[in-house]
């Protein structure tokens, strides 16, 4: 017994080393299953406000590009507004029922797009009625899904993450596939599980599919850049994104009024 104690005493630093490494390793494993990572994320007041401050400084250098993007978006929205006002075909749409989706605008304050597994931080949180599992979009693309929410900050599981799979479809036919990122190039994602019947061509547009509860249908995502066919199925369809992930700034968090209802119903149906 005495020898055992002596052994531990002599090697106490080594045991401390192993102990600390084990704790760190547990944190790493936990962070890989995102929905269980409660401990270390930047949606806490201290981290959030530091990221916010540092973002404010670098913000001044990006103002002109931000203005340009917002102006473009304004133009697009104005055009859409005019079309809906003057187009007699659209009068059948029932304007009395409120839309299924509402959007909350937020700013990206941390965007490490150079990493393999990207998690963004937004400057709004539960005070602005953001909840976990909401879609985050741009006018020209999908950004990700909200993960953790604190009072004033939110973390977002980016499309550029090995954990993300997002339902998408072809614009011309309604064949579905799912988008994932291989970690190579932040301007390109991969479209998988697309049936051979889709008959794709380079330049075809990919949009969000209506099958996920997070995103409205029909948000443009990107165009097909390259693909190959092997054994009568598509392998490695590359999709060039419309959105520039290196310059994310103003994004919209989409809240689906019926998402909880839909998820609950779907999980109940599976259980039975």
């Amino acid at each position, binding site marked *: 017994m005495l020898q055992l104690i002596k052994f531990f005493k002599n090697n106490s630093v080594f045991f401390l080393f192993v102990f600390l490494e084990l704790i760190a390793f547990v944190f*790493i494993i936990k962070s890989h299953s995102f929905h269980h990572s409660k401990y270390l994320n930047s949606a806490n007041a201290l981290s959030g406000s530091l990221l916010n401050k540092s973002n404010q400084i670098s913000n001044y250098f990006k103002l002109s590009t931000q203005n340009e993007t917002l102006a473009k978006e304004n133009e697009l929205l104005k055009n859409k507004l005019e079309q809906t006002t003057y187009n007699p075909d659209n009068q059948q749409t029932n304007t009395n029922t409120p839309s299924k989706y509402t959007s909350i605008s937020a700013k990206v304050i941390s965007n490490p797009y150079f990493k393999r597994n990207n998690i963004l931080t937004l400057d709004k949180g539960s005070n602005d009625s953001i909840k976990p599992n909401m879609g985050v979009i741009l006018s020209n693309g999908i950004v990700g899904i909200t993960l953790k929410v604190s009072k004033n900050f939110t973390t977002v599981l980016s499309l550029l993450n090995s954990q993300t799979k997002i339902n998408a479809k072809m614009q011309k036919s309604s064949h579905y596939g799912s988008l994932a990122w291989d970690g190579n190039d932040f301007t390109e994602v991969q479209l998988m599980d697309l049936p051979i019947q889709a008959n794709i061509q380079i330049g075809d547009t990919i949009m969000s599919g209506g099958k996920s509860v997070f995103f409205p249908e029909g948000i443009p995502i990107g165009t097909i850049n390259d693909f190959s066919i092997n054994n009568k199925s598509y392998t490695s369809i590359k999709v060039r994104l419309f959105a520039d992930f290196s310059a994310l700034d103003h994004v919209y968090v989409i809240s689906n009024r019926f998402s909880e209802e839909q998820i609950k119903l779907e999980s109940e149906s599976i259980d039975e």
Partner: protein
Amino acid sequence: MNSTLLKYGSLIFLLPFLQVSIFNNILLLDYINPLFYIIFVFVFPLSKNKTNLLLISFLLGICIDLLTNDGGIHAFSLVFIAYIRLFFLYVLTGKNDSDLDQLKISKLSFPILFIWISLLTFIHHFIVFYLEQFSLIRFDNLLLKTFLTSLLSIVLIIFGLQLFLKKKSNA
């Protein structure tokens, strides 16, 4: 001892702040992002008892992880190089535990300091990027990223070290 502990303990707050507000905004070729905070392992006084170094390294790593949403990657790799730093120094200088009193980081010759920092930085960066992608697919990419990022980190750390050691000798 307590005052040195306080002094180096305060780096737990200073280094993450510098890393997030300055060094995370440095981005060459869209993916080379220097990890400056590991300078901590190179400025902490050499001592036979590693307990303090390991504990502060762990806390510093956790702070970086909190800010970058990396789980425990930085804590893991920083504790690792903190544990092996003395061993590497012994190998490079040919000294051992009994000569530790004569060894001071500020008194090291530049080539030895450079090799010491380079080796540890490379090991640290390799662990970080490996844990980030969690697989050895595209090993060449992993090595290239490690190598290029290490180069930038090493240059910044050596500059930082000069500043830090100069200030210390003036005081």
